[in-house]
């Protein structure tokens, strides 16, 4: 057996075939939209590798939970109970305000805002690809996840779904360079677009005129324009404002309110007309809470 002679095409031809096919694949993928479904199909094939890579962390988590001391659990329980009571107090006021707001909107003949449906998803892995900020979550087509869906966590907007597999899907973070989200400055209602900078802790408002009233510390929330992100979820806080008259626009940097480096539990949002079976609406959540409270 002589191992220096290859069967089939020669080494040069092989390289040329691979290069041509790869370039074709790149071009086709950037032009044809249908490739997405094929890609999702292939992704389900490699998801076992993702699960394998996710396993050591899962095992650590599991053993940490398993061996957490009773004392620590009690402390955590205490903390969570306090938090729940506080939040419930706030919620009662919010329910009243919402009711009032709906009534006022009806009086004005403005459309009443609908609740969103939510499912809790868990982070599977963060991509280490330095060129794009993407995460993989553990909900997919089985849970009626769809491309373009908004993903938030308890602190603010995280990003949107770009690719749906069978049991997991991929989300693009708002800090990615290819992502931009329509936003509104809370204090002045100034509308703008916050584009990702490729830095996990920075967004940039685009095309802000020098006359615009934007200050450090202003809260930025989603404006609901573009119909991808629902209105009113926090995006970030204005970090620095540089107003250099020699530049065409003001430079406004925003630090995202969600910590993209420490994601764990996420919420997927569905508008009312796309409600999946196992999602909860805000009203249903309230009912569940009430029944829990009565049970105590």
């Amino acid at each position, binding site marked *: 057996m002589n191992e220096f002679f290859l069967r089939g095409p020669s*080494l040069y031809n092989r390289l040329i075939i691979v290069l041509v096919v790869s*370039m074709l694949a790149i071009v086709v993928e950037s032009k044809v939209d249908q490739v997405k479904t094929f890609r999702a199909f292939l992704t389900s094939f490699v998801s076992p*590798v993702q699960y394998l890579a996710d396993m050591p962390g899962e095992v650590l988590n599991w053993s940490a939970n398993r061996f957490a001391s009773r004392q620590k659990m009690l402390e955590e329980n205490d903390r969570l109970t306090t938090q729940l009571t506080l939040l419930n107090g706030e919620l009662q006021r919010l329910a009243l305000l919402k009711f009032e707001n709906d009534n006022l909107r009806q009086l004005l003949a403005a459309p009443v805002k609908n609740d969103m449906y939510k499912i809790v998803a868990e982070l599977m892995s963060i991509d280490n690809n330095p060129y794009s900020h993407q995460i993989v979550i553990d909900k997919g087509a089985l849970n009626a996840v769809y491309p373009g869906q908004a993903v938030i966590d308890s602190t603010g907007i995280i990003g949107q779904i770009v690719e749906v597999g069978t049991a997991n899907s991929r989300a693009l973070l708002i800090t990615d360079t290819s992502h931009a989200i329509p936003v509104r400055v809370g204090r002045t209602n100034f509308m703008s677009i916050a584009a990702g900078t490729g830095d996990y802790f920075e967004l940039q408002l685009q095309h802000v005129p020098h006359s615009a009233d934007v200050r450090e510390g202003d809260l930025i929330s989603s404006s609901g324009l573009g119909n991808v992100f629902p209105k009113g979820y926090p995006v970030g806080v204005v970090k620095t404002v540089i107003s250099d008259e020699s530049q065409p626009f003001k430079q406004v940097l925003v630090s995202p309110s969600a910590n993209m480096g420490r994601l764990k539990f996420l919420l997927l949002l569905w508008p009312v007309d796309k409600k999946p079976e196992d999602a909860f609406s805000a009203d249903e959540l309230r009912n569940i809470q009430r029944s829990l409270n009565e049970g105590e």
Partner: protein
Amino acid sequence: MRANRSIIYLTILVALVLQIIPMPQGVDAYRPDWVLIILCYWGMALPKRVSVGVAAICGIILDLLYGTSLGVHSIALAIPIFIVNANCQKLRNQSMAQQIIAILLLSVVHHLCIYWVQYWVMSLEFRWSLFWPTLTTIILWPWIFWLLRKLRRQFNVA
């Protein structure tokens, strides 16, 4: 004696897992190119088994795992593995220091290919941090070389 080839695929699978395993944010930029060095070793030791085709398939899997456009990593892996295949006899007879320099160049080529192809698809800023994995890769090479040679001899991979 039957040649045992499953070891090759097993090591490649381990490399794929190591390539995407979650790491703390600061350390993440220094993640070695696991798949590249494993393929380099096999491409050098058994050019008949691991060639440009295997590298391209690994690249497609990496593209799927990373969410990059299909083809980016297959180009970036096929080119270094082609170089290794073409020079496998020279590489085998080189000293460790010379091999490390070769791996350094291959890793640089790999990262440049990824950058260049991605730049072609979407505009990107060039950063030197791109080459940090090269440092850990060359530190890792002697150990990987030793480990894989041991595995190859132990299991009689041919």
